[in-house]
């Protein structure tokens, strides 16, 4: 195992994949994102951590417009996003997302879950879509379960299906919102292994997670959030081992 095998080390020139500029969001009077600004380079693995309620989910869901925000601009590969069709198209072509509770489609088989987008949106033939989905399922080690329904799988297997389903649409950026939090401890590793493999392929990843081992191993940078603000950003050695701020230190003591 290598320590901190970040993709950035091998990349000479990097383009900005996501640029977050002064994002502000309120739920009524409750200010949940306060002037959040962050640049994420292409191929970078960014881990977001912080205490519950600090706005991690809200931030990551703002990136692909699952949440609205009142102020600020998010740009993807240099294109500022708004609420129009064009922006939606950019989001769907570049970003995939994996949720805490999988959100697989229970009435479709594992294979159908993965081919749905390919056949209906990409207009791929059924045979080509099946082939592509089987390749992805094989990559995450569950090709033999392709004909099962999600309800017949373990949590770890379901999350791996969810990752394959997202990857089938060939995104450039993958967003993960606590992908292992709903899993029993013995299943966490199988999902993390898939994510580590994915990181090695040069995928741009934004992961909200409390798995510090994962952060140390693959993250290029770690973002620490509290009360809707980014408190600290930096390489994992700096933020996790040698935090500059009391809040970060306190939080890390709690979860380690």
């Amino acid at each position: 195992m290598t320590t901190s095998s970040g993709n950035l080390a091998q990349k000479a020139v990097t383009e900005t994949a996501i640029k977050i500029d002064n994002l502000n969001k309120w739920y009524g009077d409750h200010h949940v994102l306060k002037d959040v600004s962050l640049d994420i380079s292409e191929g970078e693995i960014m881990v977001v951590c912080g205490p519950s309620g600090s706005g991690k989910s809200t931030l990551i869901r703002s990136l692909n417009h699952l949440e609205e925000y009142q102020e600020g601009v998010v740009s993807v590969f240099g294109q500022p996003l708004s609420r129009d069709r064009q922006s939606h198209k950019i989001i769907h072509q570049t970003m995939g997302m994996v949720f805490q509770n999988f959100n697989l489609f229970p009435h479709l088989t594992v294979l159908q879950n993965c081919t749905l987008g390919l056949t209906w949106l990409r207009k791929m033939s059924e045979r080509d879509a099946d082939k592509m989905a089987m390749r992805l399922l094989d990559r995450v080690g569950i090709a033999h379960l392709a004909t099962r329904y999600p309800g017949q799988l373990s949590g770890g297997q379901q999350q791996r299906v969810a990752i394959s389903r997202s990857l089938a649409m060939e995104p450039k950026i993958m967003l993960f919102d606590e992908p292992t939090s709903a899993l029993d401890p013995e299943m966490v590793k199988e999902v993390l292994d898939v994510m580590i493999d994915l990181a090695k392929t040069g995928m741009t990843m934004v992961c909200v997670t409390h798995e510090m081992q994962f952060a140390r191993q693959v993250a290029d940078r770690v973002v620490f959030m509290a009360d809707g603000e980014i408190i600290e950003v930096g390489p994992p050695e700096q933020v996790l081992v040698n935090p500059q701020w009391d809040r970060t230190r306190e939080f890390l003591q709690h979860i380690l």
Partner: protein
Amino acid sequence: MNNGALNIGVLLGLVWLLPLMSKLIPLRNFVLLSWIGLYPFVGGYLFLGGRFGEELGLVHGAMTCLALAFLVILYANWILSALGKKGLNELFVPLVSRLVERRIHLFSFVAVWLLVALVIALGLSQVSLEPVPIERWGGLFLTFIIAGFAITMAIPVGVILALGRRSKLPVIHWLSMTVIELVRSVPLITVLFMAVTLLPIFLPADMEFNKLTQVLVAVCLFAGAYMAENIRGGLQAIPKGQYEAAATLGLGYLHTMVLIILPQALRMMIPNIMTSFISLLKDTTLVSIIGLFDIMLMARNIANDKDWVGMHTEPLVMISVLFFILCYSMSQYSLNLEKRLKVDR
């Protein structure tokens, strides 16, 4: 009554549904949709009889041809795919691909469809069936026609009304809500009377519907309004995560609804939907009150026949047994369906 045509009509309805059982047919959901959308034209023609193209009117005639052509293509494709050959609708692909760039398969299908329909139209124009006026339709057949129509139309109408009620556009929302609440808050018998007496007043004088059509519209609306509330209950039970997962894949409103949300909502509501169907079947006996000769009115008339004066009990017992068998098998079927679909989860 013209029995030959009648039997063919019923048989065709069943034959149309047969391909649903086969795994060889692609897009089987569309077969069911086509049955709902197209079969009534064929059935209507065969039940009504008459010279093709004259009594029938242009639209009905054209739709009948299209429907029959669809059935022919469906079966041709089934046989061809069983033999391992390409489907009939692929016939024009090489030709069409020269004219258009996208949706080649769709255009090829439409071309083949129109061609077959034309051939059928030429054939049918030679046919003349003995005409049967609608006033002479009666008995169990009529009960089945009304109940069958109500049951098949309930889900499409219900889905449209339910989605309309959840719509963010105020006009659509209020329109759907008004229809649902209005229809649900009056008894079926009133809806039937209104359809027969009030509807002709609102329509232009030269537009004349027969009684059966008016009743069908009324029953369809009634069934749809109740179904809409069933479906809305199912829609509310779908977790938000399903919409979010669909959105992140890039699915739009229509795709999300048709592929993800409605299949789950409908499955969840199978027991309620079946209950509605059963009460619909029983409610159709009310049409005897506005003078359609369904099975109830038939039974009452038996007692007035000079050969069987005073025979009130026997026909009614007979009808009860008949309805019991029908309703009981429907509820057994729903239990069976539920059990089968549970395996999926």
